[in-house]
C-alpha cells in the first residue's frame, strides 16, 4: 500500500453536536481497563456511561482473542492480583470456561509438576515455578462482562466509537463519539480513557510518549487465530516421538514466513483446538496504514501456516481455521505524561507508594524478577499531567518502556480501571478533583472490593 504523506487540510466548519446524555463518569473503551473502570464507578454510586467501539466488551481479552490472564501470583505462590480480575475468573469458573493450575500448586517447584503444567501452557510456569495464570473462553467472557455492567447499572453503548475529548481550557468536560446514530456528545464530571491507545489524550491536551524499542514485545502487533479440528493426541505424539522432524518442519515453515508455534487450548471440550499468537513488528500502532498492512500480512501468513500444517504436520490433516481475531492484537502506543511516571527504577528500588493502588507480581524479567518480586503502582500514574477531570485506565498509563513492556497485560489493566473508576466515583461524591481524591477512602474501597494492597504502615515514600 502506497504511503501518501499529505499536508493538505480541509476546514470542517463548526457544528452543533447532540448531547446524548449527561453523567457523572463517562468511560471510553470497554476493554479490561475501561470495563473495570465503569463497573467500579457504577458500583460506587456514580452515574456511569461506557462507550465501546465494537459489539462486545473485553477488548483484547475477547475481540483480540488474547484469552489469557497471566501472572496473578508471584514466585512465592501468593496471589497479588485479585479484585475484578478474580471476579472474571470466578464467573467463568461457574461455566467451566477457564483453566488454571489449582491453588495448592501455586509456587510449587516440583519438577514433574512444573513440567506437566508448562506442557499444558507456557503461561502456567514462571521462574521455574507454577504460577496462577488463567486461560479462558472469550465467548463466555463476553456474556459475563455484559452481565457485570448490567448488574452494576452502567449505561453501556456498544458500536459507538469515542474519538475526542470536549475541553474548555485544561478542563475535560465530555467526549464525542460516532455511531450509526451519528456524531453525538456525552458530558460528564470525570472522563476515563480506557481506549488502550489513549485516543482521547491529544484532544484533551495531554502530552504523552510514543517511542517504542522495536526489539521488545510491545512493538509487535498480533492477529491471533484458532485452528479447530486438530487431532491433538496425534499431534503431540508426533512431536514427542519425532522432535527432530518436528523441529525441521517448523524451521521450514518459518523460512516460508509462517508461524511455527501453536498453543493448546486447555479449555474444556476444546481438545481439538490450538491457538496461534503471531507477532508483527510495526512502527506505530496508532497509524492506520500500519494497522491495515498488518491485517493483510496477518491473514496471508495465517492461511500459509494453516495450509502448511494441514499438509505436513500429523494431526492437522482435517483441521480448519476456526476464527481470526476481530480486533488486531495491539500491545502499546501512547503512554501518558502523568503526575508520576512509573519507571524501571521504581521496580529496582522496590518502591512502595502512599497512593499504591495495585501490586503486580514481577515474574517476566528473569534475574531482575528474582531480586524484585513485585511492582507497586501509584494512583498518580493514571492522572494526565496538566489536565483536569480525566483519568487513564488502560495500558496508556504513565510509564517508561520497561514497565509498559511487562505490566500492561489484561490483569494489570483491570487493576488500573478498578482504581480509576473507584477514584472517579469518590471524587464525584465529594465534589473533588481527581488529583485531590481522598486516598484513605480509595484504599478502603479498593480493599473492600478485594484488591490486595500494601499495609500502609510499611509505606515510606510520600505523595
Amino acid at each position, binding site marked *: *500500500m502506497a504511503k*501518501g504523506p*499529505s499536508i*493538505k*487540510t*480541509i*476546514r*470542517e*466548519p*463548526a*457544528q452543533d453536536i447532540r*448531547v*446524548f*446524555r*449527561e*453523567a457523572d463518569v463517562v468511560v471510553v473503551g470497554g476493554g479490561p481497563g475501561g470495563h473495570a473502570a465503569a463497573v467500579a464507578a457504577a458500583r460506587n454510586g456514580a452515574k456511569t456511561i461506557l462507550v465501546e467501539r*465494537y*459489539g462486545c466488551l473485553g477488548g483484547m481479552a475477547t*475481540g483480540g482473542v488474547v484469552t489469557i490472564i497471566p501472572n496473578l501470583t508471584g514466585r512465592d505462590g501468593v496471589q497479588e492480583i485479585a479484585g475484578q480480575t478474580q471476579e472474571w475468573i470466578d464467573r467463568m469458573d461457574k461455566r467451566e470456561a477457564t483453566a488454571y493450575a489449582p491453588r495448592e500448586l501455586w509456587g510449587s517447584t516440583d519438577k514433574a509438576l512444573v513440567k506437566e503444567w508448562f506442557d499444558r501452557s507456557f503461561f502456567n510456569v514462571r521462574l521455574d515455578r507454577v504460577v496462577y495464570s488463567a486461560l479462558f*473462553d472469550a*465467548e463466555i467472557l463476553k*456474556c459475563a462482562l*455484559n452481565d457485570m455492567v*448490567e448488574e452494576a447499572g452502567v449505561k*453501556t*453503548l*456498544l*458500536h459507538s*466509537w469515542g474519538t*475526542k475529548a*470536549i475541553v474548555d481550557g485544561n478542563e475535560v468536560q465530555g467526549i*464525542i463519539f*460516532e455511531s*450509526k*446514530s451519528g*456524531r453525538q*456528545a456525552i458530558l460528564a464530571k470525570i472522563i476515563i480513557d480506557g481506549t488502550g491507545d489513549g*485516543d482521547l489524550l491529544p484532544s484533551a491536551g495531554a502530552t504523552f510518549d510514543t517511542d517504542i524499542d522495536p526489539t521488545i514485545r510491545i512493538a509487535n502487533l498480533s492477529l491471533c*487465530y*484458532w485452528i*479447530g*479440528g486438530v487431532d491433538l493426541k496425534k499431534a503431540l505424539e508426533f512431536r514427542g516421538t519425532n522432535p527432530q522432524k518436528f523441529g525441521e518442519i517448523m524451521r521450514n515453515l518459518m523460512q516460508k514466513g509462517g508461524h511455527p508455534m501453536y498453543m493448546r487450548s486447555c479449555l*474444556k*471440550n476444546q481438545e*481439538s483446538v490450538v491457538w496461534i499468537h503471531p507477532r508483527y513488528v510495526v512502527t506505530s500502532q*496508532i*497509524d*492506520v496504514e500500519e*494497522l*491495515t498492512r498488518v*491485517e*493483510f500480512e496477518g*491473514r*496471508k501468513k*495465517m492461511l500459509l501456516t494453516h495450509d502448511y500444517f494441514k499438509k505436513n504436520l500429523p494431526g492437522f490433516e482435517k483441521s*480448519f481455521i*476456526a476464527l*481470526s481475531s*476481530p*480486533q488486531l492484537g495491539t500491545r502499546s502506543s501512547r503512554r501518558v505524561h502523568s503526575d508520576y511516571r512509573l519507571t524501571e527504577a521504581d521496580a529496582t528500588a522496590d518502591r512502595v507508594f502512599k497512593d499504591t493502588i495495585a501490586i503486580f507480581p514481577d515474574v517476566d524479567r528473569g534475574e531482575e524478577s528474582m531480586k524484585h518480586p513485585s511492582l507497586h503502582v501509584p494512583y498518580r500514574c493514571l492522572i494526565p499531567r496538566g489536565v483536569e477531570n480525566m483519568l487513564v485506565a488502560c495500558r496508556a498509563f504513565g510509564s517508561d518502556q520497561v514497565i509498559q513492556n511487562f505490566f500492561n497485560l489484561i490483569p494489570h489493566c483491570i487493576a488500573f480501571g478498578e482504581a480509576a473508576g473507584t477514584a472517579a466515583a469518590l471524587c464525584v461524591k465529594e465534589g473533588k478533583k481527581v488529583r485531590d481524591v481522598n486516598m484513605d477512602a480509595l484504599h478502603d474501597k479498593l480493599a473492600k472490593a478485594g484488591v490486595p494492597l500494601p499495609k500502609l504502615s510499611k509505606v515510606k515514600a510520600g505523595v
Partner: protein
Amino acid sequence: MPRKSSVRTVTEPARKIKVWREADVVVVGGGPGGIGSAIAAARSGAKTVLIERYGHLGGMATGGLVNIIPNLSDISGKQYIYGLTMELLNRLDARGGTSYTKKKDRGTTDRKAVDYYLDAGLGWFYVRQDHNIGKQRVIYSAVVDPEILKDELNDMVLEAGADLLLHSWGTQVIMENITVKGVFFESKSGRQAVLGKVIIDATGDGDMFVAAGAEFDNELDNKRRTAWLALVWWMTNVNIRKFDEFKASQPEKYQELMQELAKLGGYPHFFKSVLKNQHNTIWYHCMQAQAERTDAMDAEQLTAIDVKARKRALITYDFMKKHVPGFERCFIMLTAPQLGTQGGRRIIGEYTVTEKDLETDEIFEDTIAVLANNDYHEISAKHPTLCIPYRCLVPKRVDGLLVAGRAFSSADTINESFNIIPHCIAYGQAAGTAAAIAVKEGIQPRKVDYKALRANLVKQGVNLPEITKSKAAVPLKTPRRTKTDYYQKYG
C-alpha cells in the same frame, strides 16, 4: 441510569482536518457492495480508495458470518448472476473455501437430491418451492468460508489497484452545494478526510445520506426480515451422527425439547456446516425479531439487541449441551464480530424498484443486473427474474454520490428479497464501473451513458439482457440547486 436529554447540543468548533488522499473514486464500506464498487472502479482505471470500519473486508459475508451466497440461479436452475460474484466463487473454489449445489442437481426435482440438500439444514438457501409444478427444486447457491474469503477479498482489491484503509470509519460527507466532494473518517490516526470525484456509499445503512442531504426512506416494518437483526454464532465439537440418530429415532422428543428451548428464550434452529472439515460444526442464524426496534440507526437499540442476543446464545448452548444427544461436548466457537444487519436507510433514487416491476418484467434500458426472483412465491413462478436499473443507485437530489448495496432505491418489499450478498456485489460492480466512466468523461454519475455502462459491465462478465424494447429511459436532469439547511458549504 442517566436521563436522556434530547434537545441539548454542544458546539464543536471549526477545525482543520488532514486530507489523507485525493482520489477519483472513494468507496465507503468494504462489504459486498463496497468490494464490488472498489474492484470495478479500480479495474476501470479510476484512482480508487476504499475505507472500511473493521479489520477485514466482506461485511456481512465475513464479519457477520452470513457466509451464504444464495439465489445465483432461478428455480429452474438457470444461472443469472455472474460477474464478480462468480469470479470470487471460482477463486474460493480453487482453495477449497466454498461449497455449493452441484451443477447437475440445479433445477432438479429429484427427491433424493432435494433431500440431500435439505438435510444440511440449509434448505432455505439450497431448495425452493416451484409453484408451477408444486414441487421443491434445487437452486444454485453457494456457502463460503469467511476466513478464506477475507484473504481472497484482500487480494482482489489490491490486485485491482485500489488503495485501502481498514479500521477506518467513514462517517460524514464533505459537501459543496449539492455535490459530495469527499468523506471524513475516524481512525486511530485521528479524524481525516479523503477527497474524490465520485463517492460511493457502500455502508449498507446509507450512512452518508444524512449529511449529503439525500432523501431516503427509513421505515421499519417489523414483519419483514429487513427489520430484524441477527447475531450469528457457530458451535463446534458436535457429534452430528449421534444427533441425527437421536432426531430420527425420537422425533417427538426432539420437537418437545426444541419447544422447551424456545420457551426459555433460546433458538432452536441451526444449519450444519457444509464446509470442508467442519462436519462437527453448526451455525445459528439467530434472528432477533424485535417489536421494540423502531429505528435501524439507533445505537441504544443496537446495544440492547446485541446484549440480548448473547444471552440467547448462552441459553441455547447450555440447553443443547445438557439435553440434546450429540451436544454433550460442544462449545461456542465464535460469535459474529459484526451484528447481522439486514436493512436500514434506502435512498430515494432516480428510479425506485417496486413490486410492479416484478410483474411487468420490465427490461430497463439501463439494466445493470438481472436477479433471479425466487422468494416471491406465486409471483416468482410467473416472473423468474427482476431487472435492476442503474437509476436506483443514483440519488435524486445529490451529485457526486452513488449507492452500492442494500440501500439502493427500492420499496421495502423489494428490498427484503433483493438486498443479499450477490445482489449487493452486482450493485457495487455497476456503481464502481459507472463512477469510473463519470470520472473519465468528467461528468456527473447521473449523466453516464447507459449503453457504455452496460457494454463495460458485459465485458466484465456481467450477465445482462439484450435491450429489445425501444422504450428509452428519459435522460436524467441535473438537480436544481437548493438552499436547504443540509447543504453546508465546506472549503
